[in-house]
């Protein structure tokens, strides 16, 4: 018989509420949370199946960039333009890789922490209006070439993945102010804190400037003013599970120049356009065991643009001399939203094999009376299944496979495969042979957008009212629009020299693009009553891009770093049923471009950087439709300087910097107007002082 002879006393070990005391119970035997997970880690260039450039925090700061596109000039093959154009649209910062771009750079996916911010209505990204503060960015990874199986839809010619810092890394107060010419006034304040297992940061920022100047020195109508708040919470549920919640809200006011093209009959006025951008993201990272982990990710993007105006007066006398001039009242506002839910599973069944698979569903919806006449809205569901496998056969040979299956409303199921073979001669030298395919799904306006203008006309100074009706289909949808397709093959080399202080990455590639979508103005019969010209998106073109790209990163001693890149490109296109159109593709990227950024620490107090950028002549796709063969954005060179003085007071760090940009001749990186040798705007010298304070 069991007898109770023991007095049982339970002494509860007190877990003190203060975090310090709680951590004091930890020791060698304690579990630690998984910090560097598959989702966090940067892919080493020597192991990547495609060419990847990474711009780290040091390079971002040294570049003196106030906007993300300025940083991207460091990437081989990327060209940045300021599209103060003559269409009467708002100015946009445009980032294009290997040409093929108008002011909406639609052949490239852009992600922030894995969240695609590709505009569902018009494609591309409004870089002025993305609610992210440059000081919160940890690094920017640019995948050069298609990689849909890793980054999803529209990872077509390139992918820009912006990675922000974990909230634990931004503890304390941070403040920054930029003041300079061009009415530059930027201010940023960030506070990061923690409470037990919760790390958080909140950032407030405003960015303002008066844009660029006209060639005659007058200020162009392209002022930009934005305010934004973004926040990030990282909560460690336990050692194997973490939740990340991020959110943002930003508003940008932009001046838009009036339509300058003389041949355009319906001219937009000078005006202000307001854009709102917000997002919410919730991600759960879970480590199942040493060999498996998964993430579940949900995000919501919201974009809104307010653009209501009356056109300049239209003179209908060519049709009927008795008709009075009239204006069109246009509401080009829109709202778009995206919901995306994604599950990704990482598995390492054996040491030599790394597998990833996942699925996602996405819902895009756009409301706009103007862009979707007459329905006023459009939406689309997209479902994806993707996977990849990296197999290290032995220390010399690696095979990397990936595939994405994607089905969107209105398109067939698309398959985007990728294969790469890597041979590692040793730890320092790797060659890569790869081939991949990807598609670009037409954005909603391409797929089903319809724009219709109408007005009731009077005649004889209003004596006859109404006298006639003006009706014009500006855009008419094409019912059988296909996805754009790219097939890319490349041979790459990555090597390290001089005790790994010098890394060199280069590749030779050929990208074959097919079913490219353009919008020629063609005769159409949109309704039984309408018989005229309208823009219709169609799959019309095929191009081939061949080239060489190189990038080197050299740490010279402990105080100097040199980062350089360059690209040589050749674009050829097929015969084109629309005269001159194909020439636009061939001229849409410079034949050569390169950049050099040098960083140097003089001592603990002083550091500096010099950036030089060269871009050959080119034409943006919307720059010069009627004048093929003329590359109206000429060669330009940029020289930037930055000098920093650092101060340290205990836990407080103060730095002040002088930033001088565009120190060489004035230039234009987006000439659009035709029939004149003068550009619309020029980039001239920008000078500002930067003050930064960090208190931990």
């Amino acid at each position, binding site marked *: 018989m069991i007898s*109770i002879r023991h007095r049982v*006393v339970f002494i*509860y070990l007190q877990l003190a509420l203060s975090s310090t005391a709680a951590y*004091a119970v930890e020791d*060698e*035997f*304690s579990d630690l949370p998984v910090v560097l997970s598959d989702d966090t*880690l940067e892919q*080493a260039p020597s192991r990547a199946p495609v060419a990847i450039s990474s711009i780290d925090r040091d390079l971002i700061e040294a570049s003196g960039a106030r906007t993300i596109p300025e940083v991207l000039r460091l990437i081989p093959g990327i060209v940045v333009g300021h599209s103060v154009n003559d269409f009467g649209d708002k100015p946009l910062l445009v980032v294009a890789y290997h040409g093929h771009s108008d002011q909406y750079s639609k052949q490239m996916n852009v992600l922030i922490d894995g969240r695609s911010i590709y505009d569902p209505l018009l494609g591309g990204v409004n870089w002025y209006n993305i609610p992210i503060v440059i000081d919160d960015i940890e690094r920017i990874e640019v995948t050069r070439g298609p990689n849909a199986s890793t980054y999803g839809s529209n990872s077509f010619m390139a992918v820009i993945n912006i990675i922000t810092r*974990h909230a634990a890394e931004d503890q304390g107060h941070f403040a920054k102010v930029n003041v300079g010419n061009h009415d530059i006034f930027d201010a940023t304040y960030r506070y990061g804190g923690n409470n037990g297992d919760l790390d958080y940061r909140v950032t407030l920022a405003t960015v303002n400037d008066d844009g660029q100047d006209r060639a005659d020195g007058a200020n162009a109508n392209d002022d930009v003013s934005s305010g934004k708040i973004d926040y990030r919470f990282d909560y460690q549920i336990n050692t194997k599970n973490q939740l990340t919640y991020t959110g943002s809200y930003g508003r940008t006011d932009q001046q838009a120049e009036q339509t300058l093209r003389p041949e355009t009959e319906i001219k937009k006025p000078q005006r202000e356009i307001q854009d709102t951008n917000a997002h919410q993201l919730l991600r759960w990272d879970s480590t199942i065991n040493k060999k498996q982990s998964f993430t579940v990710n949900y995000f919501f993007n919201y974009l809104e643009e307010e653009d209501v105006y009356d056109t300049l007066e239209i003179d209908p006398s060519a049709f009927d001399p008795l008709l009075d001039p009239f204006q069109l009242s246009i509401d080009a506002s829109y709202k778009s939203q995206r919901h995306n839910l994604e599950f990704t599973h990482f598995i390492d069944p054996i040491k030599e094999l790394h597998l990833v698979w996942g699925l996602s569903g996405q819902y895009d919806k756009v409301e706009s009376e103007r862009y979707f006449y007459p329905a006023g809205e459009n939406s689309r569901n997209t479902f994806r299944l993707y996977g990849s496998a990296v197999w290290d056969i032995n220390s010399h040979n690696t095979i990397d496979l990936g595939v994405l299956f994607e089905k969107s409303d209105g398109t067939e199921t698309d398959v985007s495969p990728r294969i790469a073979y890597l041979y590692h001669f040793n730890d320092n030298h790797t060659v890569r042979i790869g081939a991949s395919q990807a598609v670009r799904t037409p954005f909603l306006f391409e797929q089903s957008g319809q724009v219709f203008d109408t007005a009731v006309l009077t005649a004889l100074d209003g004596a006859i009212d109404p006298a006639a009706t003006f009706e014009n289909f500006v855009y008419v949808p094409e019912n059988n629009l296909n996805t754009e397709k790219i097939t890319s093959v490349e041979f790459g080399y990555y090597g390290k020299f001089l005790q790994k202080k010098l890394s060199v990455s280069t590749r030779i590639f050929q990208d074959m693009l097919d079913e490219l979508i353009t919008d020629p103005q063609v005769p159409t019969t949109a309704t039984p009553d309408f018989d005229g010209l309208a823009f219709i998106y169609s799959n019309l073109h095929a191009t081939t891009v061949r080239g060489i790209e190189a990038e080197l990163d050299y740490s010279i001693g402990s105080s100097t770093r040199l980062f350089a890149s360059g690209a040589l490109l050749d674009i050829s296109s097929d015969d084109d049923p629309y005269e001159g159109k194909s020439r636009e593709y061939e001229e849409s990227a410079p034949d050569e471009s390169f950049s050099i950024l040098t960083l140097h620490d003089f001592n603990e107090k002083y550091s500096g950087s010099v950036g030089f950028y060269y871009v050959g002549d080119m034409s943006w796709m919307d720059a010069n439709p009627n004048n093929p063969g003329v590359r109206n954005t000429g060669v330009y060179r940029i020289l930037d300087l930055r000098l920093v003085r650092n101060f340290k007071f205990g836990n407080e760090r103060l730095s002040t910097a002088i930033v001088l940009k565009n120190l060489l001749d004035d230039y234009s990186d987006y000439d659009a107007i035709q029939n004149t040798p003068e550009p619309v705007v020029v980039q001239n010298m920008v000078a500002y002082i930067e003050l930064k304070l960090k208190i931990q």
Partner: protein
Amino acid sequence: MSGYCILSGIMDRLRLQCMNRTLILSMFKFLFTLIFCISAGAFAESKHNVVIISSSNSDFQMQTASRIRENLEADGDMAIIVSNDDIVAPEKNVKTLYVAIGEHAIKSLHEYDSNAFVLRINSRKIPDSKYTSAQSDLVTAQPVCRHIQLIKSLNPDWTTIAMLSSIDSLDIAAEFTKCTIRQNLNLNVYAITDERDLLQTLETAVEANKVLLAITDPFIYNSHTVKNILLTAYRHRKPVIGYSDSFVQAGAVAAVYTSPESIGDRASRIISGFFDNNWQFGKNIYSTDSFSISTNPQVATSLDIALPSIESIRESLEQIP
């Protein structure tokens, strides 16, 4: 049978409520109390009674406790209770050996009964520990030179090593310094006295050195700070050498450590010897006699570090006694 035990549970529940803990938590504790009461009944009848107390329910401690329990149960007539964060105390006339795993459990047991029979399992010797034939330590930390040898075997070019140390671990840092001097390596120890200085000191340390070597110092390395440390080092593209498998899973590139199985096996042998020796330990301080190596290929690959095989690392480390 369990009238007293239930009463104890109710008392505990009331105490928990007084401590402003949630009702749910108190109910869980109450249930655990019942479970332990039932276990305690079986505990009474055995030849040797062993209570294993862990400082937390970490995988490592649970695996260690489980291994000891399995070994001892296979060994003979023993009643064993494994307790997570509670001390199960027998009546005074029943001899019981406590196995305290981790500093927190050791200190709590000491506060409860400073004369209890106890085998203290900790990474290092607890300062001011009392050694008698009834109280002994099993120190699980690997020899300091083995950690240094690990760094050398991973990459001979990692010649400047950063180490963060609080006042509690300065003695350990000094041992490491001696070893690195002998091996012609440069160890830079960065003392941290205020936790607010951790990030800036860490930045300086990883900027100026090729690798960061972590040591068991909960003031510096704990489940909260490890995020900052690993992320900051990673941002500077500098590897971190951990001190446990858990640290490697968190994001360190590699670690040499004593596995829970090894500790369990070693502790079991010590305990068996203790009972065979009429409830007396043969030594004041025991150490572990084997080591394990853990690497994180994903982090190493991302940092462009070519890891040697585990076998070659092991060969290299076996040279260190």
